[in-house]
């Protein structure tokens, strides 16, 4: 049963859900774009502020664990949602269709993500994952009158449903073998299944179930070879929706995968970890290679995110005290850089007609039109490329350190090779920003308060990228403390 302490522990989730309901009622009562956005931002800020209170509550609600990973995930989810909500009004202002529903969908997705990072039971995992994914279909297809957006939405819907089926089947197999749905109980169940196993080798049913779950979650993470939807959905979806997909959705799913892997007992884990290592290796090389010659920035970032998730998987593949901390640091730096890059795309794309300005030629000479936007984009790309003095380098440093500490030389080699390949396309985009000749007419952007809020958010993100790169100590200390609590 839920106690009062549990409710306090779940306060962020409750606040976000309540805000979603409020926003829905507000839209039904009277449409007001700025008001809705302000309400959303307010709710998210409130949820963020309630986090210290919630984390001190020592709550243990059913189906969930409110530990360090959950707190880490909640902060990241809420912070990225806040940034998205702050940057969206400027983007949506030019959209001629209904604007307010976007915030409703965003809040629903955030609720799902908050549940997902804390879930320690298969049922909770499934419900939260669906709560996270359903609004995303709508968000990706938000500009449903354009062909690409609709196509992207449907593609994501269909493939996502298939992945869900895999996930459910995997759960069923695990349940059939162990009789448990609680993550923690898996350990015991799996160990006993292992010891009573027929020949002492891995149990084929458990093996199958675990692989199916990895496939299901790997789809959401767009890990190779389950990445096929990524470029199209990234390109077709409206920029803020893609951003939700790239940050909130991925980081929440990643954290739940991390939690699942931690529950797998050591005796069973070797082959599973090898499988994850293999996926990591394929993703980081494949993602970077496919990104090489993309001309569409959103598509390019889609492939690059495949590579980044590949790097991240190393944190799952390698067992050890450092792995949770590494996941946290890398997710943190990845999310900040992705927010920066997509934030600039959203800012540049703000225009009443047609699709997002995501072709590379839209960005030609951006530095000479709006130097600050180009500077933020440069910083984000440098950070994604893992160049020192930006946040991304700290993340890459952690990943390589983890690989080296565990002597996984071929994974480390993959990271080095992947980074070298990745540089090529990051640099290509970066130099485009500074080329003198404007390739296409600059789009006139809407002026106003919404623009200034968006710009302010971008500045904060840029400063954060630099600050985390130059003085990462507070972030590292905080995440290390959380990792110890996990």
């Amino acid at each position, binding site marked *: 049963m839920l106690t009062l302490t549990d409710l306090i522990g779940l306060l962020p989730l409750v606040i976000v859900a309540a805000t979603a309901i409020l926003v829905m009622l507000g839209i039904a009562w009277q449409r007001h774009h700025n008001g809705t956005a302000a309400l959303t931002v307010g709710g998210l800020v409130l949820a963020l502020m309630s986090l210290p209170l919630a984390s001190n509550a020592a709550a243990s609600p059913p189906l969930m664990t409110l530990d360090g990973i959950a707190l880490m995930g909640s902060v990241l989810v809420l912070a990225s949602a806040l940034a998205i909500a702050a940057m969206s009004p400027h983007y949506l202002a030019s959209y001629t269709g209904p604007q307010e529903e976007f915030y409703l969908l965003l809040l629903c997705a955030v609720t799902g993500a908050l549940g997902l990072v804390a879930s320690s039971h298969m049922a909770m995992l499934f419900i939260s994952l669906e709560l996270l994914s359903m609004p995303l279909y709508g968000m990706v297809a938000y500009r449903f009158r354009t062909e690409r957006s609709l196509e992207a939405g449907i593609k994501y819907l269909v493939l996502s449903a298939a992945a869900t089926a895999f996930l459910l089947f995997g759960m069923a197999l695990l349940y059939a073998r162990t009789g448990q749905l609680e993550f923690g109980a898996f350990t015991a169940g799996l160990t006993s299944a292992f010891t009573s196993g027929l020949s002492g080798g891995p149990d084929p049913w458990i093996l199958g179930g675990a692989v199916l779950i990895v496939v299901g979650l790997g789809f959401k993470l767009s890990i190779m070879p389950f990445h096929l939807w990524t470029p199209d959905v990234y390109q077709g979806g409206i920029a803020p929706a893609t951003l939700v997909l790239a940050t909130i959705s991925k980081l929440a799913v990643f954290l739940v995968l991390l939690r699942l892997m931690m529950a797998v007992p050591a005796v069973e884990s070797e082959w599973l970890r090898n499988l994850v290592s293999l996926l990591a290796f394929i993703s980081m090389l494949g993602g970077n290679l496919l990104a090489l010659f993309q001309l569409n920035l959103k598509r390019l970032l889609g492939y690059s995110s495949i590579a980044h998730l590949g790097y991240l998987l190393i944190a799952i593949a390698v067992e050890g005290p450092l792995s949770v901390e590494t996941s946290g640091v890398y997710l943190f730096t990845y999310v900040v850089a992705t927010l920066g890059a997509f934030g600039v795309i959203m800012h540049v794309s703000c225009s009443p007609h047609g699709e997002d300005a995501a072709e590379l030629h839209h960005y030609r000479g951006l530095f000479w039109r709006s130097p600050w936007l180009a500077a933020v984009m440069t910083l984000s790309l440098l950070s994604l490329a893992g160049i020192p003095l930006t946040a991304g380098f700290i993340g890459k440093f952690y990943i*390589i350190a983890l690989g080296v500490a565990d002597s996984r030389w071929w994974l*480390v080699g993959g990271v080095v090779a992947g980074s070298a390949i990745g*540089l*090529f396309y990051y*640099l290509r985009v970066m*130099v485009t920003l500074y080329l003198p000749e404007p390739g296409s007419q600059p789009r006139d952007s809407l002026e106003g308060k919404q623009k200034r809020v968006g710009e302010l958010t971008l500045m904060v993100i840029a400063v954060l990228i630099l600050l985390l790169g130059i003085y990462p100590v507070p972030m590292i200390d905080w995440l290390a403390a959380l990792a110890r609590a996990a």
Partner: protein
Amino acid sequence: MILLWLILIPFFGSLLCWQAERWNQQAPRWIALGTMLLVLVTSLVLWVGGDFSPPGVSESPWLLEWRVPWIPRFGIEIHLAMDGLSLILVALAGLLGALAVLCSWNEIVQRVGFFHLNLLFIMSGVVGVFLALDLFLFFLFWEAMLVPMYFLIALWGHSGSPGQTRIRAATRFFIYTQASGLLMLVAILALVFVNYSNTGVMTFSYNALLDADVPDGLAFWLMLGFFIAFAVKLPVVPLHGWLPDAHAQAPTAGSVDLAGILLKTAAYGILRFAIPLFPEQSQAFAPVAMTLGLVGIFYGAILACGQQDIKRLIAYTSISHMGFVLIALYSGSELAMQGAIVIMVAHAFSSAGLFILSGQLYERVKTRDMRQMGGLWGRIPTLPGFTMFFVAASLGMPATANFIGEFMVLFGTFPSAPVVVVIASGGLVLAAIYSLLLMQRVHFGRETSQGQLAGPDAREYAMMLLLLGLTLAVGLNPQPLLDTTSSMVQPVAALFSDSAGLAVQAEEVD
């Protein structure tokens, strides 16, 4: 604290330059010049006041030292220290930085502020590389200078042929150095973790890692990780692919920085990190390194003879000169290592001089293709004379600094590797050939067009005279330079002979 300021002055100067463009087109130039001169003067003051005699047993080997914790989680510190070698190189960076600003005075007319931002940022990174004693910090500076260099080549470079060749050259430069840098990061991390599992202390400190006890097999790979990173930058021949293009497409200031200072960071890295951290493995690796050096000497010289583009020619001669440096660094002789440092300084002067001259030629004849030059001796006053001097310096004419360096390298290496020295001496002949070819094709021969061209103005005159004077000064009186660096080189050379002794002993025991 003064060490930190040596890094921060160019850094803040760079930001100031960027913003100064708002008030005045010329302001960034003056600010950048002032900043670099400040770095130069600071290091000269330190030089005059410094005591470079070999330290006693209990004394610190560093002239100045400054450390504060940075990321305690991994034992990373901001640890800066300066000895004779770093001091010389920092002063060199200040000098060449100032020259780079001066030589682009008329060449760069677009985006002046952003240009100087990049230029000073490179200098900040380079000074950091020469001062950092924490391996993490060293790596950070090592990589930090790449991005501005990339922009320098990609945005202000020349496109030799149609298409985006300057961007391609810049990208190639970046990927080569960044990828090899990551290998070094892996090696650094492996070293740190080995040390951690031995001692239980996580630290990136140079002094602590010097004593790290790395298993033999692994140590060789780690040494290779460091060596490859430095070899790409030096450059050593199979890894030199980025250099000719980067030089040919870079603006003059970029070439001056690249040849004058950035290449030296690699030699510095070998001398400071690769050899002292892994003395036995370096000893074992020395024959390979020397062979690579020999290949570099001949490869660079032979290819230089066939170039049409004057900057490419000079770029290939750099490869050849750095071959001598590589041989010297792995010879294990103090004399040769000292000679390598003299070559580094001399090459900085002479290659900077030649690059600046080719920039000035370009401003006058609007081409870098030597087939379209010829007979310029009669058409331009004074400049050909200067070219003659720097060409002579580059081929190692006595009385120039280059002669002292090459002589010391060959003399010092002879006892340990006579065959290498005999072959390397052949490279000197090739040096004479490509140098004279350059003179012949640019300044003598048939004139391709008529008309008198402008002579050097006061700024150009001053730059040339300064470099000429310095080359002669070091050539005629190298002792002050040698005194400054000897206390740094001695222990490294001793390390080499110690480990050789140990290896022999080990064999005897077996």
